[in-house]
């Protein structure tokens, strides 16, 4: 079985009397260590699919497995644990916790996982240094540039070595140089640590970095290709 597998996932948003099909039966598989981009126009269902895969939202229909575990069958609190231990998130708007420093933001996940203080500090600092943020560990998000914040967000997403990192348009708010650096960094992490990445994007640069491109249109996969 694939590392990630979806089966006939649909998502219907009901607003007043109007039903919108955000996802209309998605069958999708991913193996461990993939570096894959979901692309498509706005409203094609990229974010919705990502949210469902990450356990932030539930599908209207269909099933979803992550490393042999059926996510669609989990309770809210089980989903909460799944997100904490197996999934890392990188959001378009960075979404760091404004009252915490870079280091504390990264450490936060490890705190929730009850990693002891010494270890979590070491791991967090080492990772931030590796991502070129060694000078910024005591800065709060407001004191950092967008690129720096997004790199901290990536650090937060991978510090606990999740099985899957979901990144929702991670470069959308970055200039092209910074975006490039960020993608290089994630590609390197993918290679070195074998972390599986799934992006949603319509940034050609991101697609260029990806090894597999999946196109979504009107809630359906219309194209799925491996790049060499």
């Amino acid at each position, binding site marked *: 079985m694939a590392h990630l597998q979806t089966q006939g996932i649909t998502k219907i948003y009901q607003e007043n009397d109007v039903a919108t099909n955000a996802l209309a039966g998605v069958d999708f598989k991913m193996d461990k260590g993939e570096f894959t981009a979901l692309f498509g126009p706005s409203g094609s269902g990229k974010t919705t699919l990502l*949210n469902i895969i*990450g356990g*932030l*939202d539930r599908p209207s229909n269909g099933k979803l497995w992550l490393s042999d575990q059926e996510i669609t069958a989990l309770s*809210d*609190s089980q989903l*909460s*644990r799944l*997100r*904490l*231990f197996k999934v890392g*998130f990188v*959001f378009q708007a960075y*979404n760091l*916790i*404004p*009252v*915490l420093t870079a280091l*504390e933001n990264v*450490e*936060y*996940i490890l*705190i*929730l*996982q009850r990693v002891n203080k010494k270890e979590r500090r070491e791991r967090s600092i080492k990772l931030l240094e590796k991502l070129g943020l060694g000078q910024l560990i005591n800065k709060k998000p407001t004191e950092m540039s967008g690129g720096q914040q997004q790199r901290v967000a990536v650090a*937060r997403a991978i510090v606990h070595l999740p099985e899957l990192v979901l990144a929702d348009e991670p470069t959308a708010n970055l200039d092209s140089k910074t975006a490039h650096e960020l993608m290089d960094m994630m590609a390197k992490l993918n290679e070195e640590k074998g972390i599986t990445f799934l992006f949603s994007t319509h940034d050609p640069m991101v697609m260029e970095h990806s090894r597999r491109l999946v196109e979504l249109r009107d809630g359906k996969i219309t194209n799925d290709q491996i790049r060499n």
Partner: protein
Amino acid sequence: MKEFVKIAWRNLGRNLRRTLIITIAIALGVWGVLVTIAVYNSMAFQMVDNFIYASLGHVQIHIKGYTKNPGLRLCMTDAGEILQKIKGASHMAGYAPRIYGFALAQSPRTSQGVMIVGIDIAKEPTVSRIKKFIKSGSYFTSDDEPVVLVGKDLAHKLKVGEGDKLSFFMQSFQSEEDVVESFRIKGIFSSGITELDKMMVYLPIKQAEKIMEMQDRVNEIAITVDDEKNLELLKADLKQRLPEQKPDLRVEELKTDLDGKPVSLLKITKSGQDKMILAPEAFGESFKLNGNVSMISNRLFLPMAALHKNRLGKDSYLDLELIGVEPVNENRVSGIFDRVQIPSDSWLQGAEMDKELEANKGWVVLSESAAQALNAVPGDTVRLDSGDKVLSLQVAGTLKQGLDGPGEKPFALMFRQDMWRTFISQSAASEVVLRLKENSDARKTGEELLAGLSLEVKDWKELWPVLAQMTSIMDYTNYVLLLCIYIIIAFGIANTMIMSVFERVRELGILKAIGTSPRQLFGMVIMESVMLAMIGMALGGLASAITLWVWDRNGLDLSMFEAGLAAYGLPTVLYPVLTLKNILTAVIMAFGIAVLSAIYPAIRASRLLVVQALRRI
């Protein structure tokens, strides 16, 4: 946990102005609550303190029933022994015996009913502030001085001052008639308690003993405790030291009267060597409190030699039993005076025998056997001789039967008071006979009568429940006030926390997205609220501490309300009183309110839908 505290703490700093406003509101609330409670407590405390040290004492000892039916005769008859027993009781700060009697005080201008209190001039200042209350003149210096201390309002009413003379009409222990005694006013006191200043006249206990015939008898022993919290220990020790303080009395039921008809009578005698009941009036006073008792008669028996010189000059001599009774009481109990035989030309002819004899002293009624042996007839004079005392009485009539029915033994009846005054110099009875109301249970009544002679140890709360109630009303007022202020604070906190949660929906959504559990989010919001409360309380506590410290040093001068305060027995300068319980209640309630008011926003935070939260900007 620590991290959540950190996040909560830093969140408070994000909107400093809002945090500041709400913490100041909480601080003001806490300050207001603590200071107001301190004022209320101060009033309650000072009021109780004033009452206790004006006259009440912390604990009082009386004979049972005294507090409900106070009266000179309802007294402890062996005061010396009782005082000896309580000496050295644990946690006792002071004790003082007192004699209380009602009197009419007469000044050259007017008269007024007063309460005369005989106090031990050395011991009294250990339980009351009477010495400090003196506004003009001075406190007693000697037991032998015939002087009094008079309350300010009473002096004003009687239009007298220090150095003036006052006459008092009062009852004494023994006699039914008023005694009149004059005293010079040595000092005028003002206790601040209107009731006392209007009513009380103090005099040295030795003087009171003398004029009211209260040697070794007191109505009250007032006691103070070293620390209010030891009150129960002191009470327990006193009760232990005074176990069933009752004389060695025996009760016997008499089922028939002089004619052999069924009747309900109780005879009380003293067992043991000394068979005389001393001061039976005191017991009688206690027995009267029992609803089943309708009449009491004290009987005194003494063996006596009687002498009669007949008209021919011949002496007759007889050993008889002399019986002292009060004719009216005795007649209502036994009807014996209705059986007295008198000659047709007697001065008693046509009169109600018992009442007439009660009013005219100097008579004796002889048993027929005694009259025969002495050769005496009504109108003759008989000499009664105890060996060292002699009394001559006129024979008023004769009796065929004695108090115990027809008997051979010669006896003579006389007025009991004259008898003990002449022969034994203190009031005594050999037996006390009580007539019970119809259908009363004689045996049960007898037990009740003996139990009624024991002592009661009561604390100020039992003695003056109104005072205790007023303090608990103050307590309730405190809590209501506390609740009102805290409800307002609760809305302030709730508002702040709701705002804070709604402002951060997205952020909370992220926390949830990356794995924070709903429970942790809930706790975080509650924590923020508790921190707000803690800062507010710390500020409020600090402000209160400063206020109370300044107040404690300088006192709160309320002299402009003097008249109103005096009515409640309050001094014009108040000092703060705050108990640990007050502070803890305020703190615990503040925490409770902080948690409760944050519950709704906390639930909102924990139930956020991540996807929706993330869509918020």
